[in-house]
């Protein structure tokens, strides 16, 4: 594999990573705050040196016992949470900076930078200073600056955190164009980014890789609570038995087993909208009916999310406001949860 | 009452003899040494002095003019210009003559007393001096010679004596025609008794002898 290979540790941050990303793929790096996502990006950009281990990009070892390739020789573009536009240069000069650094003649650089600014919707801001921009405007200019250099590898550390909803789809489609076929890493907290931009995903927790692979393989089968929350499904852990998952208290949740499900420790994923709550067992057809206790109630716009306790694990159900009022849901209430077995994936 | 404890403002070139003078006589004297003209500025500015000793006539005249003195100034010593070279006389200087051609000569600027004397002396000798530097104080001339930076310098005999073995001294006969005069006077508003006792100390025989030891000429 000639994409990105990281097998390195940054001791002071307690981050130890072991990762392979295929060439030409866009990999989303997700995980809780402090998980090590920015650290991972720093190792690739050259801002951080690993204490031990190696980092290789497109077959070239850029950090390791053999030496350290400085950031400006890596062909890597970085866009961070903070836009970090050069305060002494105007917007156009910022966008031209990378091109000029690579020896592109002023005239060409100017034209390309202008085109790039146009594409992020900031063509009318060319002569402003960074301190005269709003947060979102600054971030768009920073994006234009990073993309203008047409880098081999693009690193994006939460680039859209401060962008407005109207702008985000444009920027997202711009990124899709630019990232196509280019090795890239996108740190994000937004599921939509993962689904629309990434082909691969890496899940980090407490400085370690907990899951990695193709989006299509990893996302539907979360093996960590973080990823389940991220994709908005319930995750139950237990023992896989024939056609179901046995929980700690012996309850078996019936579901559909994938090809790779083998007996032993396993998971069940259940979408929140596949869970119904009732005062008594509804005795409907192909469903699970299990006893639960309400833990918390959280309004979520059109629906209300009710989190219940199932054999010590959390299970979320999205109900309408009316249903919640009718049931008189409040923490501590005992209910029966019905779960469509066809909505339960076992693996 | 209390023992006399004079405060004396004196030209820098008097530093060593005056210090010894107080020590020998076992009197307490507070000295403030500096460039003569600067001392007058300070007196005008209200410096709390009892006695002022100047290293030249012009400065003493200015002090009198500014009205900071009390009583008549007294001349108490003289000084002669001599030629000094660094130890070993590396440039082979023989006097105020052709041996100075191409050598690095340092003298006082004509604006200061020692420089005025130097200019007059050169005229008497009939030589045009081509110095590499015209310093504003004798100390700086001497410093350039003792450090070997200059090949020769014109300083006062007292300075040459003070520098000891760091310099070789060549006397210039004509310099006796251009003696530099030292004057001492009580300061207006100072303690008159302390002042007169110190001036007494300087002008008395013991004081004069001590000044002679340091290379000064007789008043």
């Amino acid at each position, binding site marked *: 594999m000639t994409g990105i290979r990281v097998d390195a540790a940054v001791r002071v941050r307690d981050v130890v990573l072991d990762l392979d990303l295929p060439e030409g793929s866009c990999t989303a790096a997700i995980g809780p705050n402090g998980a090590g996502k920015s650290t991972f990006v720093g190792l690739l950009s050259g801002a951080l040196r690993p204490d031990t281990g190696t980092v290789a990009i497109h077959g070239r070892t850029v950090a390791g016992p053999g030496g350290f390739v400085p950031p400006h020789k890596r062909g890597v*573009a970085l866009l961070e949470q903070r836009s970090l536009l050069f*305060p002494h240069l105007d917007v156009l000069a910022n966008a031209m900076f990378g091109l000029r650094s690579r020896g592109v003649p002023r005239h060409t650089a100017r034209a390309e930078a202008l085109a790039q600014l146009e594409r992020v919707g900031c063509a009318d801001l060319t002569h402003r200073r960074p301190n005269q921009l709003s947060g979102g405007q600054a971030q768009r200019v920073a994006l234009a600056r990073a993309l203008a250099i047409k880098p081999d590898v693009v690193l994006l550390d939460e680039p859209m955190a401060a962008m407005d909803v109207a702008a985000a789809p444009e920027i997202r489609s711009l990124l899709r164009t630019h990232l196509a076929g280019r090795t890239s890493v996108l740190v994000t907290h937004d599921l939509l980014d993962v689904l629309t931009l990434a082909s691969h995903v890496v899940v980090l927790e407490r400085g370690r890789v907990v899951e990695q692979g193709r989006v299509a393989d990893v996302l539907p089968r979360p093996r960590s609570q973080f990823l389940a929350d991220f994709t908005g499904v319930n995750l139950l852990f237990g023992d896989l038995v024939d056609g179901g998952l046995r929980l700690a208290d012996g309850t078996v949740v019936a579901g559909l087993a994938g090809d790779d499900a083998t007996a032993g420790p396993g998971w069940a994923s259940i979408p929140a909208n596949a869970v119904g709550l009732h005062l008594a067992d509804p005795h409907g057809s192909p469903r699970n009916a299990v006893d639960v206790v309400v833990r918390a109630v959280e309004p979520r716009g059109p629906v209300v999310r009710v989190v219940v306790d199932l054999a010590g694990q959390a299970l979320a159900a999205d109900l309408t406001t009316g249903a919640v009022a009718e049931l008189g849901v409040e923490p501590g209430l005992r209910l029966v949860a019905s779960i469509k077995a066809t909505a339960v994936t076992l693996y | 009452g209390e023992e006399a404890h004079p405060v004396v403002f004196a030209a820098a070139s008097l530093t060593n003899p005056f210090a010894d003078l107080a020590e020998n006589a076992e009197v307490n004297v507070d000295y403030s040494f500096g460039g003569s003209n600067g001392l007058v500025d300070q007196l005008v500015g209200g410096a709390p002095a009892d006695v002022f000793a100047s290293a030249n006539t012009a400065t003493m005249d200015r002090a009198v003019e500014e009205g900071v003195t009390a009583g008549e100034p007294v001349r108490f010593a003289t000084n002669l210009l001599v030629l000094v070279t660094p130890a070993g006389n590396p440039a082979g200087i023989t006097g105020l003559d052709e041996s100075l051609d191409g050598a690095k000569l*340092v003298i006082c600027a004509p604006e200061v007393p020692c420089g005025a004397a130097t200019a007059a002396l050169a005229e008497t000798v009939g030589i045009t001096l081509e110095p590499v530097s*015209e310093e504003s104080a004798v100390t700086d001339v001497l410093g350039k010679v003792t450090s070997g930076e200059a090949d020769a310098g014109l300083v006062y005999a007292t300075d040459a004596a003070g520098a000891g073995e760091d310099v070789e001294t060549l006397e210039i006969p004509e310099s006796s025609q251009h003696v530099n005069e030292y004057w001492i006077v009580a300061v207006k508003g100072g303690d008159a008794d302390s002042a007169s006792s110190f001036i007494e100390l300087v002008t008395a025989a013991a004081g004069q002898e001590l000044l002679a030891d340091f290379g000064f000429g007789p008043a």
Partner: protein
Amino acid sequence: MPRWTWLPFALGLTFLVVPLAGMLARVPWAELPALLVSHEAVEALGLSLLTCVVATAVSLVLGVPLALAMSRMTGRTAVVVRTLVTIPMVLPPVVAGLALLSTLGRRGLVGQHLSAWGIEIGFTTVAVVCAQVFVAMPFLVIALEGALRADSGDYGTVAANLGASPTRVLWRVTLPMSMPALVSGAALTFARALGEFGATLTFAGSLAGTTRTLPLLVYLTREQDTDLALALALVLVLVALVVVAVSARFNRPVST
């Protein structure tokens, strides 16, 4: 800014400004025009300006890398280097001159070797520049180092990621971003060199046209006429005013 701070502010400013007024009060205004066009004054001023410009340029060439290197140092090395650099600022100028004399002088540590090759710095205009650089360069270094350290280096990282070599980062990011400190440091250096007196006198001597800069002329003039010396000093003050005022105009901070 709390309101009470205006009291010490006013006191501080007054203390620094009133002596200038006192000085102006003593200047013999009638004699001033004639003095200012006198050959001596013009010559000294010209020499002062020339040497200070050269000294500031040399200080920039040597001092900027020094400040850069220092701003990247940590721990013991940083303390040692910073301390060494500061010493020329604290030496009484006459002592600084003596130190230079014992180093670059004819018999000095380095000077004796130069002398053997026929190079003698003493009593030349070069010696004036040396004295000025020695006492004034630390001002530039210290002013700049502080600013470089304060900049966390994030912008340098960004520039490097955009493909800028360290040299380009230096010229296009690091230095422009610390331009306020650079300009004010250079102005301080120029000003300090302009006022430099003790080290010049001790190391370079005082010859009209070659080594007698304006402060040396002031000192010399004072031996005869204090008020006239003050008038000459006024010229120094005026030049300094212009330099500092011009630098202050450039010194608008770059906000991030």
